[in-house]
């Protein structure tokens, strides 16, 4: 058993209830996609699973441990076994890509090794190998500020692949990539999870990608799980219910029909 949430709620400091009584059980080696409208609590759920945020109530069990009952040094050791891909990877602008990728192992390295690695990268082949999987090996010595949003996302993914966690979480990992690259990157993530027996949980805003790549889909809305079922059983009715938005009215269409001939090429 890898993950268990029971009655987990999360409210932020400003009184917003991001998650309300979520029960979730994900077995080791499972690949799960979380979908839902913007603001549904997808990022909050992933942060909870990464032990980055403490639930306001309810219980959480990760990799057989209860992170918030551990001492902070034990929790850091547990966190080193969990990798979270951020939607916009928080990387210092002047940091080189090689350093950013190798930083994935900081949780496993001693302080001395970490400092030495800052002066001279200790595992250039390792960083190049992970970047090559994402077609980014040529940017090994570029600075992060020189990369585009999609390239940065791939650097963030390469960092987590280099970290080689037992539980891989990804928050909208392909949101800034073109369709072909998004497809390829999700394949890399899923294949990595399969080969190493890693549990993979990813939130995605593109429903087609989620249905195509993940066997189990969780629909999240207003901080609650709306449905949790195999990808094959997710129908259009459920998706409509998940994304329904009464607030949004489509702008009134101009009633005057323009009789303009627009040439099509």
């Amino acid at each position: 058993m890898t993950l268990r949430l029971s009655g987990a709620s999360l409210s932020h400091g400003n009184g917003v209830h991001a998650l309300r009584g979520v029960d979730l059980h994900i077995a080791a080696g499972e690949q799960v996609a979380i979908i839902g409208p913007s603001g549904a609590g997808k990022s909050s759920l992933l942060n909870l699973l990464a032990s980055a945020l403490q639930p306001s109530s309810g219980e959480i069990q990760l990799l057989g441990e209860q992170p918030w009952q551990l001492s902070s040094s034990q929790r850091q050791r547990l966190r080193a076994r969990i990798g979270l891909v951020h939607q916009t990877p928080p990387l210092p602008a002047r940091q080189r890509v090689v350093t950013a990728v190798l930083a994935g192992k900081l949780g496993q390295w001693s302080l001395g090794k970490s400092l030495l690695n800052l002066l001279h990268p200790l595992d250039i082949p390792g960083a190049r190998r992970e970047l090559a999987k994402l077609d980014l090996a040529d940017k090994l010595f570029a600075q992060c500020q020189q990369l585009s949003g999609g390239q940065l996302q791939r650097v963030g993914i390469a960092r987590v692949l280099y970290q080689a966690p037992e539980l891989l979480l990804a928050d909208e990992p392909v949101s800034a990539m073109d369709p072909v690259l998004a497809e390829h990157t999700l394949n890399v993530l899923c294949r990595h999870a399969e080969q190493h027996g890693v549990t993979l949980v990813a939130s995605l805003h593109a429903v087609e990608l989620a249905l195509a790549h993940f066997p189990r889909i969780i629909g999240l809305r207003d901080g609650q799980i709306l449905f949790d079922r195999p990808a094959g059983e997710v129908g259009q009715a459920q998706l409509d219910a998940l994304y329904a938005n009464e607030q949004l009215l489509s702008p009134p269409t101009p009633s005057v029909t323009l009789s303009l001939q627009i040439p099509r090429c």
Partner: protein
Amino acid sequence: MLNRDTRDPAALPRLLLTLLALVLLWPGIQLSELDLGVLLQADSQSEMGRFVAAFWPPTHDADFLQLLLDATLQTLAIATAGMALALLLAIPASLLASRALSLSAASLGGRPKPLAQLLRWPVRGLLIFLRSVPEIVWALLFVRAVGLGPTAGVLAIAITYSGMLGKVYAEIFESVDQRPAHALLQAGSGRLAAFVYGILPNAAAELTSYTVYRWECAIRASVVMGFVGAGGLGQQIDLSMRMFAGGEVASMLLTFLLLVLLADQLSRVLRRRLA
């Protein structure tokens, strides 16, 4: 103007703060007895004129220039040694005082636990104490302890500047983007590793700029402390003024200008390398 569509909720507080600043400024001018009219009176003008007229021409004979060179090098040495000693204390103190390395802040949305915040206060208190006593007072104290000479200046700068550097470093660490460090902490890294990988790359340019600026201030401070016998250019200026040798004072002020210019250029070069 105040109808619902155009109302800015920040407008009223801004207006009140501006009024408050004006209300506070007026008694400040009164209390400091600021009266610019005095500068325009005839006798004070001729007095200032005589003082400045003696500055021309700047002294430049070989003997004096040799003396000037020695004093300048001594001033630079005092400032640099004082800064180096100050850094030894300021860097660890800033790491202890800053919230940037807080593990609990990473999981509580940026705010550390109250207990951890309480533990930072003794370090902050130490830094406040170190910088609240002006360096000239420390210099007077150390001149009595170690005698006339540069040592007193070095110690005075080390003590005061460690307080200033520690405080500002801690604030610089907190002012840069915390997310890289938080992400590393959440991936299990240690605090110091998260600091050097997540905070330092973003803070490096500002840290360098502030450190070089403080070094420039240390040069100026070492001159002031020279007046109380802590060596360097200041002691020479004091001697020359007592002998009414305005030309010598002028040469030394020109040297001074050059030093500040040098520090400015150094800061610019370093910032360009780091930014």
